[in-house]
């Protein structure tokens, strides 16, 4: 503010830079190195040739693209109308629709997939019902169709949340001006509303694409013959057929390149829609009356019901009697007793301890970085900002492998420790929290800090007593979402976990894998309840009714 002296904040910048080099750049470098340097020390592209040369491998990336593009398209197709009805019409029980869709997209993906197996699998209740009642054989839940169904219903709420925010920022006068010039109804929807919200549509698409592309749990549970890229990556690193670290590293490099390309394509596409909208007069919601209103309600409720079904069903299953993989008639708490025997307490403790520690680290880093970028703008600090976005394009499995390569061996020997798990949680969630902290700080006028300084407060005091408390609302709500994401994290912890550091999510995943479905359901039910409680807390703290900063 005063003169560009080398004050305390410069040292903070340097410390942050060293930290980022240690946990982001160095592990990333490790992966690149391992992908081209063979165990005997020679340089070779052979791992990449192996991937692109054999269709068994290269097919997985085609599969991943197929499924991810399809899912992204489908989430837009069903999510945009949902958001449109929600934002422009007064739907009955709108709050319930909102809560359900948030619950859907915040749960662990593989639990939904597993529940769909229970419902629509070969011995699923719905499958059996259709067979006995109508003699109809439903199509298999495994493969492309099943993954698409599970992921679409899981990710469409992301589109809904983004689009609802964008629709609310459309100024009513624009809508009125448009109808004044004779453009109404569907024509207005396509010409005005969707065009105005195009930057948001693109942002939502990227979000869905990144999550669906990196999703490891769903294709593992539902894939069978249909192998996607993250599954291949995991199998090559820790697979039953022995692991090939060099090949896995090459796959990780390819994954990062793919996501980076998509990321920059999206940025390029967004740059072509350079306008921002900000509603002085938000659109007032119209009553949803008549037959059209009925159809809107039907659409929204049916969608939410189908998307929410897996979570309800999993809680129901957790109270059913079960032996191994077979559920028998009648209810009991047996599954929970089994879960307690299977380290329920330890998994709960791990989840809370690691989650809270990772969260604290994220919050401290996010607040400091936001302050550096917004208030101490400099080339160094912008470099830090750019580096901090790196995890955004690193799928979870890649972060897991990168950390193992960098810190698994001596002298660090962090393999199987809580430290490495916390590191991965913190890294994965960091970009999101930094974004929301930066956005929060940008809305705080600098004159408030200047007022504090002119009233005799030191720089440190101004930061701790004025800046941080004013950011706290944004930080806390962001932190709760990060907490939920950490609790349901699978794709990097599946690579990093050990017996001692398994979380609730890991336990649920492990017991699905072992075919002990009852025990898995108990773990999953507990996880669902924790997620739900956290989200209700979030909604109580964040002031606005249906804004959610992802």
């Amino acid at each position: 503010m005063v003169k560009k002296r080398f004050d305390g904040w410069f040292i903070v910048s340097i410390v942050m830079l060293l930290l980022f080099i240690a946990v982001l750049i160095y592990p990333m470098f490790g992966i690149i190195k391992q992908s081209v340097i063979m165990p005997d020390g020679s340089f070779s592209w052979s791992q990449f040739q192996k991937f692109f040369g054999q269709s068994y491998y290269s097919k997985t990336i085609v599969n991943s693209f197929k499924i991810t593009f399809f899912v992204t398209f489908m989430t837009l197709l069903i999510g945009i109308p949902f958001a449109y009805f929600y934002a422009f019409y007064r739907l009955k029980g709108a709050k319930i629709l909102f809560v359900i869709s948030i619950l859907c997209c915040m749960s662990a993906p593989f639990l939904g997939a597993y529940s769909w197996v229970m419902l629509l699998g070969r011995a699923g209740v719905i499958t059996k019902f259709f067979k006995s009642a109508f003699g109809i054989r439903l199509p298999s839940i495994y493969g492309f169709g099943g993954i698409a169904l599970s992921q679409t219903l899981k990710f469409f709420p992301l589109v809904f949340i983004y689009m609802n925010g964008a629709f609310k920022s459309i100024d009513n006068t624009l809508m009125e001006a448009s109808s004044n010039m004779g453009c109404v109804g569907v024509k207005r929807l396509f010409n005005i509303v969707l065009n105005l919200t195009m930057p948001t549509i693109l942002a939502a698409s990227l979000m869905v694409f990144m999550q669906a592309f990196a999703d490891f749990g769903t294709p593992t549970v539902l894939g069978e013959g249909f192998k996607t890229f993250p599954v291949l990556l995991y199998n090559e690193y820790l697979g039953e057929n022995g692991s090939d670290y060099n090949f896995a590293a090459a796959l990780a490099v390819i994954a990062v390149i793919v996501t980076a390309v998509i990321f920059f394509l999206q940025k390029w596409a967004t740059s072509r829609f350079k306008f921002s909208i900000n509603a002085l007069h938000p659109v007032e919601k119209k009553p949803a009356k008549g037959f059209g209103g009925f159809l809107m309600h039907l659409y929204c409720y049916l969608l939410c019901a189908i998307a929410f079904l897996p979570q309800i069903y999993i809680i129901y299953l957790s109270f059913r009697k079960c032996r191994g993989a077979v559920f028998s008639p009648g209810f009991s708490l047996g599954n929970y007793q089994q879960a307690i025997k299977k380290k329920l307490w330890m998994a709960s403790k791990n989840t809370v301890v690691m989650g809270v520690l990772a969260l604290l680290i994220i919050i401290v880093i996010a607040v400091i970085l936001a302050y550096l970028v917004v208030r101490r703008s400099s080339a160094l600090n912008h470099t830090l900002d750019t580096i901090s976005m790196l995890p955004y394009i690193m799928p979870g499995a890649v972060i897991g492998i990168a950390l193992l390569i960098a810190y698994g061996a001596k002298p660090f020997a962090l393999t199987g420790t809580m430290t490495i798990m916390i590191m991965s949680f913190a890294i994965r969630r960091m970009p999101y929290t930094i974004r929301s902290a930066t956005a929060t700080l940008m809305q705080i006028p600098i004159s408030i800090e200047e007022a504090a300084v002119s009233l005799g407060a030191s720089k440190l005091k101004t930061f701790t007593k004025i800046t941080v408390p004013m950011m706290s609302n944004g930080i806390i709500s962001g932190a709760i979402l990060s907490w939920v994401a950490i609790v349901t994290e699978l794709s990097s912890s599946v690579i990093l976990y050990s017996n001692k550091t398994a979380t609730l999510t890991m336990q649920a995943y492990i017991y699905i894998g072992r075919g002990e479905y009852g025990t898995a359901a108990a773990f999953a039910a507990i996880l669902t309840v924790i997620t739900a409680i956290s989200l209700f807390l979030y909604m109580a703290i964040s002031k606005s009714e249906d804004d959610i900063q992802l």
Partner: protein
Amino acid sequence: MSNNISIRKAVKKYGENVVIPDLSVEIKEGEFFTLLGPSGCGKTTLLRMIAGFNSIEGGDFYFGDKRINDLDPSKRNIGMVFQNYAIFPHYTVRKNVEFGLKNKKFPKEKIKEQSEKFMKLMQIDQYADRMPERLSGGQQQRVALARALCIEPDVLLMDEPLSNLDAKLRVEMRTVIKNIQHNVGITTVYVTHDQEEAMAVSDRIAVMNAGVIQQIGTPKAIYQRPANLFVSTFIGRSNILNGTLQVENGKTFIVTKSGYRAEIKGVREEHRKNQNVVLSIRPEEFLLDRDATQGIEAVVDDCVFLGLNTHYFVHLTSGEEVEIIQESSIDSIIEPGSKIMLTLNTEKVNVFTEDGSENILTGVHNDRPED
């Protein structure tokens, strides 16, 4: 507690871009001093240099005898009021007011006493335990003033404090600000782009343009005898006519393009020669006579009735367009298209050199330190 401020040869640069080339000003103890100018003229920049939020590239800033150039903003003992109030939203009104007192390590009883005193003075004591978001803009600005004043600062700085308020509140608050400044007797530097507001509150005004002070003087002095053409057009409205100055038998006359000639008194000795000049005539300095045969011939293009006054937009035979204000009379308004004759109140008219850089009449007060 109050202090005079002297600024000598101040320079402000942003990179290669010079915003303030060389500025000196002396602000007296206890004075209400306003920096007035169009946006981008450097007035807020100068204020923030005094406050310590902008770096100083050259010159010296003194509060009394104390040079403050390198003093940290938190140690300058200034009270500052911001355009957006800058109230801490997470503190109650009382905590906002006490914030500075606590930093300045006032004793506990003194903190309570002082904050009560200033909250009473600003009439916000009934909101003491409210959160700021439940206060109106005017009330928030009162909190900001109480907070700035209660630390007994050496100087009070205000950066367009009224521009976020609606018109009615703005007029009300400027009286509040003027009265409180008068009561406390603190040296105050006030920034605004609103000339009416500046005239209403200030003891003296510095009119700035492009980082240079054009004139410093009382509101009356700068309105009636502006130092140059910029000041005359920025403060109030002025019609600008080209003309000539003629000297005959020791008397001076102004002649307009359309041939109107009138004697003008008070031309300074060194300017008494035949030359081209620029006349600056305020709308109320035209005398309008429908029946006169002498004067400047003009045709009314439009008229606007505003109650107390009626504004006429007319063009002269020379083609120049001017605006005239007359007190509204009970009989009918002059219709557009009518021909009229104008004469000048030569006592009030200002005459500038052809380039507009200097007023050639006597009676111009400019307190700008000669550099």
